[in-house]
């Protein structure tokens, strides 16, 4: 019982700490120039995406390469809710999550007939199929390469829904529109810092739900699947419905993330469903730490920060950074490092990924654990000295650590 109470207390403290850091994001990121709304929103949105992905990959070990499909589904559904119903984001988000869940169930039902690399390839195939369909037969829904976006309410019924919206709920409520329609949450605009705080609150809720799932009986079954699925079958547990449920939950998280992308910037394009987007969330999760609660959010943050900041750097900025060097050396250093910024930012990301996977297989969270261990060591040594020799167990096996 003591164990359970301690864990509940630790989880509560973790949640409070996480919420405080997320809500204080604009202040924390100010020194590194990351406190503008667009980046802050993306950090939260991709944090949600990564948390959901980790429920599948981190807990069950099933690696999906098709989660970007649910981002696309969420974005398109949100746009259609804006076009047909209302610019209020609440129904848009709700419909997006439900539709992503239905999609995830269908894709999961088929893909989860296989495991390992075959499962990954099946999910990748489904996502690429969605991407290709969005550019071809589904053009009347997705608006193809142009992308789907909100328009003014159409005055003529013969105008295509792609070029003119109807927003029946807004019209019924007599909402007046001036210029480009903007998204809102019961009047609160979803752009700028209010948009960030809306995403931040949803990120905290998603984190809390992931915490509950991880600590639950259901979460333990998912961990048992990852650990030894064959043994679990002989224990009387049918792994498939657990896997499908985990797949659907992670698909719903991705649907929410896709919806929020459209909420903060009401345009949806098929590129969100491309395989690179699916690969990106895998990178985020591994960078941060697979199977941990905080790791995927950290990975998402690092990835998006690098994308937004490093890709915007140019030789001028690099000259400023290395201005302390003698001119001849500075030119050489800038010439070399310029390969890794601007359009070459992917090389930075690739290098970062390689370094972390080689030296920190458990991601950034493992790095933090190692640093903590260095500080704890002197303490442990002191307490060990105070213990009697008879209590020492040099061959004591390792002890299970809960995911932080």
């Amino acid at each position: 019982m003591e164990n359970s109470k301690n864990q509940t207390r630790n989880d509560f403290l973790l949640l409070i700490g996480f919420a405080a850091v997320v809500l204080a994001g604009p202040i924390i990121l100010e020194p590194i120039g990351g406190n503008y709304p667009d980046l802050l929103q993306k950090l939260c949105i991709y944090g949600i995406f990564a948390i959901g992905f980790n429920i599948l990959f981190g807990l069950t070990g099933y690696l999906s390469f098709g989660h970007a499909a649910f981002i696309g589904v969420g974005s398109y559904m949100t746009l259609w809710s804006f076009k047909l119903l209302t610019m209020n984001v609440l129904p848009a988000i709700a419909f997006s999550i439900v539709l992503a869940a239905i999609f995830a169930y269908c894709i999961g039902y088929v893909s989860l007939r296989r495991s390992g690399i075959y499962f990954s390839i099946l999910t990748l195939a489904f996502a690429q199929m969605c991407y290709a369909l969005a550019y071809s037969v589904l053009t009347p829904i997705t608006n193809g390469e142009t992308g789907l976006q909100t328009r003014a309410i159409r005055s003529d019924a013969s105008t295509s829904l792609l070029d003119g919206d109807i927003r029946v709920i807004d019209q019924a409520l007599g909402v007046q529109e001036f210029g480009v329609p903007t998204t809102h949450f019961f009047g609160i605009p979803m752009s700028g810092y209010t948009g960030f705080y809306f995403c931040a609150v949803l990120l905290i809720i998603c984190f809390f739900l992931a915490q509950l799932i991880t600590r639950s009986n259901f979460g333990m079954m998912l961990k048992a699947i990852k650990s030894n699925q064959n043994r679990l079958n002989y224990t009387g547990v049918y792994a498939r419905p657990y896997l499908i449920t985990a797949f659907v939950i992670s698909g719903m998280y991705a649907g929410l993330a896709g919806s929020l992308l459209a909420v903060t910037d009401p345009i949806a394009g098929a590129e969100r469903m491309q395989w690179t987007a699916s690969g990106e969330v895998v990178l985020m999760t591994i960078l941060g730490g697979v199977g941990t609660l905080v790791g995927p959010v950290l990975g998402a943050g690092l990835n998006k920060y690098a994308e937004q900041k490093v890709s915007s750097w140019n030789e001028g900025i690099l000259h400023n950074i290395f201005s302390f060097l003698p001119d001849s050396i500075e030119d050489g250093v800038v010439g070399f490092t310029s390969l890794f910024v601007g359009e070459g930012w992917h090389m930075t990301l690739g290098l970062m990924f390689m370094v972390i996977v080689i030296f920190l297989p458990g991601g950034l969270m493992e790095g933090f654990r190692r640093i903590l261990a260095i500080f704890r060591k002197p303490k442990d040594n002191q307490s060990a000295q105070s213990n009697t020799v008879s209590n020492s167990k040099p061959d004591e096996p390792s002890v299970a650590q809960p995911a932080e």
Partner: protein
Amino acid sequence: MAVTETINADESREFGRGTPNKVFHIDDVHKSFAGLHALADVDLDVYEGETHAIIGPNGAGKSTLLNVCVGRLAPDRGAVVFDGHVLTGRQPHEINQLGVARVFQTPEVFPDLSVLENVMVPALSKRDGHFRLNPFKNFFGEKIIRDEAKETLASLGLGEQFDVVSSSLSRGDKRRLELAMGLIQHPRLLLLDEPTAGMARHDTNATIDLLKQIKEDGMTIVIIEHDMHVVFSLADRISVLAGGRIIAQGLPDEIKGNPKVKEAYLGEEQV
């Protein structure tokens, strides 16, 4: 032989400590791999409360028979029936939910989970069935199951290792852990595949004592074992498998004196 869904009650007979029901029945099972007959015409009856040992030399088909029993392998012919339910064609999790637990020859545990979690998972499966969606029920809040798991582990000598990651256990401890995973489900039929393999003599004797205690509680046990000390300490009846066929069946004393058994299995070994 035609397979029936239920066993005829008339077929039951008095056995052991007065338990009359034939609870487990292997009916004309045949299994071959690429033309090699691993099992041929195997018929076996196990009675409720009985401890039935299956012995035989290496390659006799013992583990294949156990794999057929738990749904890991499908027989080419014949059927396995437990408590009126045909097990053949069922998934392993369905067979377990009917009350059949298996302990593997090579320890099969959840290596990334703690010892306590390893035992709590099958206990939850027993209580909740093969699937139950409870994403908000805290695993460590399951006080009754946790206490029972601790009690079971303590009875097997793993009381000091609740929080240890099971991958770091010794082979003998893993075997005891696996036994605990089976016992916590209170199965009606416990299938043990060499439960003392890899154990020191002291641990083997402790396991025999434990299994005797389980036997006293009325659990039906089928045990595959090489160690004759274990077999003759526990078995009410013994079946001898050689070349995929049952060559002898009977009480331990009958098996000891059976010349076929001596020839096929025991050889020069002193029984």
